[in-house]
């Protein structure tokens, strides 16, 4: 089938909003095989592109920096960070919340958009899910290393230990252990399961014995049987249904670390929705930041289309507004509650010693997304990319402001303090990006970064627009004489 150039716009541009025309999810002259070629082609490349090597060299050396910093930390003590009393949490926890937040876009795209029948997700969900996994890996490191006696961190798990003691389930940190642990596991299952058919495709195209065995093993002997597809679809639906409340719960639980405490600026009921909105906001920003270069590098403009980018821009605009609303609500409550400590905390955020951080946060998270109101700007890949990077910065500072500025000035003026990160703090943070990108580069080189089976499923050739079809995941027979047995 060939696509007809119905309008004057570039054939790559499918960002029209005319409800009469179903916007194409995949553009260009592509049949099923072409998709397979494009996606598997990346994995099968005989020669890895130079750019990849350059990127990998940088990111892997940053990863080494991360490990070096952790080694130094473990051998020397938490004192190598800038922490003190009153500010007992700094970069480590900020990074943890930041990375967990990043992860959320992945699950959101793969689960929530799936349930909402947003078929455009198919081109980017694999990619986003991978991002989730790696972000959670990065996030998982920090709670682990931020404790004073890292070698006893396992006491946080409910496993019998030499003291015959159990952890304290009233502590939000323990809820965290379960929430993040579950989140990591479920995301991994979700990601892997979605990949099985595509791994089978690579297996079946394998030209070398090694690749055949590896991908053969990973694809678990998938033979695209429709009876399997049936259960596969069901399992996928169920996982999506489970992942949706999960993703909302994870950042809610993370926010409990703060909301359950009694610190002014932390102790507030707005945190769960506020954190979730922020997480989705930052997550999409990170997807955009990553996907724009990737689709250029591997020429995937026809699969990851401008419409995908535009949709994500719209989501960022929406969540950005939610975050902005949360900021103002906090201020309103601080004033309305009449609580002097609360009131001071927010005054102090905006005009105290950490005002600079606060205003960076507001600029990046509230002001910058406003450009997405204009279709010209949001459809400009470069502007979109820059904005997404700024949003990532802003969201990191949001966590910094929440964690540090609240702690630095609490109830007793006598114990007020100021937190300055050390070089170790900064390098550890930078190193975590190294780890993230390293994993990511390995992923796009060795695994199918687009869900082929799903993309094919939404192509015109798959006859989705056959009359009588009631949409994705619809099992009513539409063939004469068909009935469920």
């Amino acid at each position, binding site marked *: 089938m060939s696509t007809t150039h119905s309008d004057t716009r570039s054939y790559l541009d499918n960002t029209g909003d005319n409800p009469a025309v179903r916007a194409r999810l995949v553009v260009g002259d592509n049949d099923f095989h072409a998709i397979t070629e494009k996606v598997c082609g990346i994995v099968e490349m005989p020669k890895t592109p130079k750019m990849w090597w350059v990127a990998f060299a940088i990111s892997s050396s940053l990863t080494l920096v991360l490990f070096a910093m952790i080694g130094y930390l473990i051998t020397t003590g938490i004192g190598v960070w800038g922490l003190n009393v009153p500010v007992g949490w700094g970069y480590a926890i900020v990074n943890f919340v930041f990375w967990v937040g990043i992860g959320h876009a992945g699950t959101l795209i793969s689960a929530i958009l799936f349930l909402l029948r947003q078929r455009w997700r198919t081109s980017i969900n694999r990619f986003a899910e991978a991002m989730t996994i790696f972000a959670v890996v990065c996030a998982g490191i920090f709670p682990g290393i931020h404790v004073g006696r890292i070698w006893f961190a396992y006491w946080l798990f409910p496993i019998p230990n030499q003291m015959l003691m159990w952890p304290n389930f009233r502590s939000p940190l323990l809820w965290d252990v379960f929430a993040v642990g579950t989140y990591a596991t479920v995301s991994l299952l979700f990601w892997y399961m979605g990949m099985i058919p595509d791994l089978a495709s690579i297996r079946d195209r394998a030209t070398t014995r090694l690749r055949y065995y590896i991908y053969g093993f990973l694809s678990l002997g998938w033979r695209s049987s429709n009876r399997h597809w049936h259960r596969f679809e069901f399992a996928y639906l169920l996982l999506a249904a489970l992942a949706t409340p999960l993703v909302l719960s994870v950042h809610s639980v993370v926010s409990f670390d703060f909301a359950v405490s009694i610190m002014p600026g932390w102790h507030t009921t707005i945190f769960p929705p506020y954190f979730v909105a922020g997480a989705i906001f930052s997550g999409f920003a990170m997807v955009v930041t990553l996907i724009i270069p990737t689709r250029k590098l591997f020429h995937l403009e026809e699969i990851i289309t401008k419409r995908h980018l535009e949709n994500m821009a719209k989501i960022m605009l929406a969540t950005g507004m939610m975050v902005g609303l949360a900021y103002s609500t906090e201020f309103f409550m601080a004033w309305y509650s009449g609580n002097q400590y609360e009131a001071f905390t927010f005054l*102090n955020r905006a005009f105290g010693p950490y005002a600079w951080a606060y205003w960076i946060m507001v600029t990046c998270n509230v002001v910058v997304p406003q450009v997405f109101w204009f279709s010209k700007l949001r459809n400009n890949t470069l502007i979109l990319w820059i904005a997404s990077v700024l949003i990532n910065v802003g969201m990191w500072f949001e966590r910094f402001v929440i964690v540090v500025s609240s702690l630095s000035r609490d109830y007793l003026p006598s114990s007020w303090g100021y937190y300055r990160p050390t070089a170790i703090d900064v390098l550890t943070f930078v190193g975590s990006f190294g780890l993230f990108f390293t994993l990511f580069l390995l992923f796009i080189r060795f695994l199918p970064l687009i869900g082929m089976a799903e993309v094919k499923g939404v192509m015109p050739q798959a006859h989705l627009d056959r009359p009588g079809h009631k949409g994705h995941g619809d099992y009513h027979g539409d063939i004469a004489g068909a009935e469920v047995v």
Partner: protein
Amino acid sequence: MSSIKPTGATYWRSLDELSRTPEFAEAVQREFPNDEFDTLPPATRRQFLMVMGASLAMAGLTACRWPKEEIVPFAHRPEFRVPGVPEHFATSMEIGGAALGMLVTSFDGRPIKAEGNELHPDSLGALSAVAQAQVLQLYDPDRSRRLLLRESGQEFVKRWDDFRAIVPAQFAGDGAGIAVLAEASSSSTQAKLREKFLGARPGARWYEYEPLSRDNEREGTRLVFGSAQRVHPELTHAAVVACFDADPLFDHPASLRLAREFAAARDPESGAGARLYAAESTYSLTGVRADDRFAVASNRVPALLAQVAHRMVADHGVDLPAAAAGFAGSVDSAASDAEARFVQALANDLAAHPGYSVILVGPRQAPAVHALAAVLNHALDGVNHTVTYSSVPDPDRPSHFEAIAELAARMGSGEIETLLILGGNPAYNAPGDLGFAELLAKVPTTIHLSLYDDETSQRCTWHLPCAHTLESWGDGAAWDGTVTLRQPLIEPLYGGRSAIEVIALVAGDEPISGRDLVRRSLGQDLPAMSSEVGWRGALRDGVVDGTAWQKTTPKLSPSALAGAVDSLRSVLDTPDPTSDRLELVVMGDAKVLDGRFSNNGWLQELPDAITKVTWDNALLISPATARELGIGDGEVVVVEANGATLELATYVLPGQARNSVCVALGYGRTAAGQVGDGVGVDANPLRTVAAPYVLRGATIRGTGRQYALATTQDHFAIDTIGFNERNHRVENLVREASLDAYLANPDIFHEYDHHPPLISLWKDHEYEGEQWGMAIDLNTCIGCNACVVACQAENNIPVVGREQVLNQREMQWIRLDRYFKTDPDVPIDEIDNAEVVFQPMTCIQCENAPCEQVCPVAATQHTPDGLNAMIYNRCVGTRYCSNNCPVKVRRFNFFNYHKDLADTTKMQFNPEVTVRARGVMEKCTFCVQRIEAVRINARNDNRPIADGEITPACAQTCPTRAITFGNLNDPKSKVSHSREEHRSYATLAELNIRPRTHYLARLRNTAEESGGESHAPSHAEADTHGKESV
């Protein structure tokens, strides 16, 4: 003699390993491992520790390492000694010629904690921060551990025998050319030995020098009475106390007693409401407590006192003795309305309370000012009521500064052949204009007995290691003369000898032990002492009852007074300081005094009560003067006075007098040891014999450079938002009202608590049995820091150093929160004066502890007796508890702070308390180890725990008894009673944390508020008091 060559010795680890080394075998042979030292190179502490180890190991082998002299009561019943059960020995330490009684806890032969001796008149069971830190000094690895002979640029290690060998030659003949420079001493043993020494050597001279001397007071009394007298303030029944640059509550040999009396004189529950006035240039702890404080340059303080005299005579017809009439007229004009108001209020109050008022003048004021005060106290009928006199030992000796000046002159003229310096550190702390350090080179033989190989020792030919207070025998007199004994708790670790032993040695006495010297001397003074029973009783008590000096009622001597009036005139004539001719007040540091405790980590890291500065001295300057000179807070400035300059950082302190800057002595040491070297700057070079305390005509200029002072609390100067909020919160945190307002409306302090009812989601937990609680009386807390050090000693709290304090990682469990209270209408950049209030803050043991619920591993939980317990070995260090602590009293081990600790220092550790590992959270436990110790005894005796039986270290040492601890479930316990007082309130109660520590609000009793009427005790009381004190 063996010249030094370093040898690489191995660090000893275990007894077995050790016993294989020849050094050990040898050490075991000798009785005194000390003699081993002459084979040691000076540089390596390891070498020393090895032998230390050997001696320790011997202790292990021979059951215990006790002095060979018997120590009563231990020597009496060794078979009752249960290893691991701490014992207490009464002993004493001496600073500036006054002996302070201590009770030292010894654990298996290791003294680990010093507390006050209840029987001692100057201690009454309390002990100052400095005195408590003696225990740490005892184990200081930097202490000198060998005799050194320095000649022709070389160093030789010697042994005592070598020194004994040169004595006859050096101290022969009639003593011409022989001089001894000693610290002030109240020891009658030393006095006798001195007489013996001088008697045999008529030509020899004996000089006494203390860089921080109270001689001005002594000379002042001479001006009034014709003979030197010792002044004893008696505050118990005082109604009006006026302090002129005086700090009776902290900077006085009897300050512990005076603080206790003052607390009693202000106990609102017993109706007592003494009013305290203070006129001073820089904040003293007495000034902090003052109801009416007037910040004025020290140079103008005499004028204030003169005006008070004038007003009392003019307005109230107080009649001065004829000879002293001249005092009254000397000044009659106030410099400002504020000054006039202060003078008038004070004059009225003093005159209104004859017999109940006292005027105290500080040591930095000239003798004439003390004379004036003495006359006024006389006129106000204070003598034998609010102030008593007694004779002083050695009344005819020249004042300390005259003495050192004369010695310096004779050294300069080359008259002195042999100079024996007993303790002290004159090369460092003699007034700068003497150039004492250089003069030492002009003396052929200089011998310095010292704890450290310090600045003076390094310039002397001989250095002799001195035995530490806790290692030596001795005696002394309390400020009131009570005979006080000193007994060693441990064999001299470094082979040192005490001053009396060295004097005995040079006096040609057959070398006998310190114990025999002391016992012989006491036996001569007090017949009772010659009996074994009397002697042992005295050792047990540490004091000899009824040996206080006879109180005298000296008569005014008109002839002397005439001179006094003249010299006061000359004092009053000096022009007041201006911003370009500042006054520089040089004071003794509250922690390291004149620098003698510079190498003590506890004291260096102790936050200064007012500035909260650690590990440094700063130039205190008033905000107004700083603005005038365009100098910022923390800016490095160059101070010039008497031709010498000083470069240090400023600390802008509201309440500091205008045009008067202040710097503490005792810093800038160059040979103090690893801890004290290079901390702060040395102000001694600026001092002169003529003006050792108050230097006129000083100038300062800013360098624009900033220097970070390691403070444990915000500076006064912070951003405006923080400043306003801090002001706003203080009144709720540290509740305060005027005495009259309180008496009128006892519930005044609870008008602050408006919060919703404190209800719980769940049924409240029932707390059965003993429930520990604490009450801290802010009305009697004087911010002396004694509790902080007591806690540090008791609980093995590490010293973390300046860098860590700069990172806000100090570890002291008790934080003495200091707040400046300023007039809310005055913006931050116009403030000049401020009130200071203290709030001792440590874990308040909340019942609904926010820290507990957030700990993921339950490392902090509630004990059945209501303690918020911290389980160190369970803690993984998430620091969440600290974040969630509303009072931020939890301390985190960011590093392994004990890693580099010397083995000797480890000997100080309290074995009852865990030494916390790296990455572990810690905090106040209400001294749970003391609670359990008492509980175990009570269980064994099958009886309930009595009220007051348990005292945490902080409460035990508090001079004003501001801290009460006990069982809240016992309605009759003292703590329950204080809980019921109207003044009792809980910090941050609105958070529903239900703290177990309550505070008793602070009372202020200014003249305006009470219309000049102070709350004097009834006259009946006064008469009885009059009788008992005569």
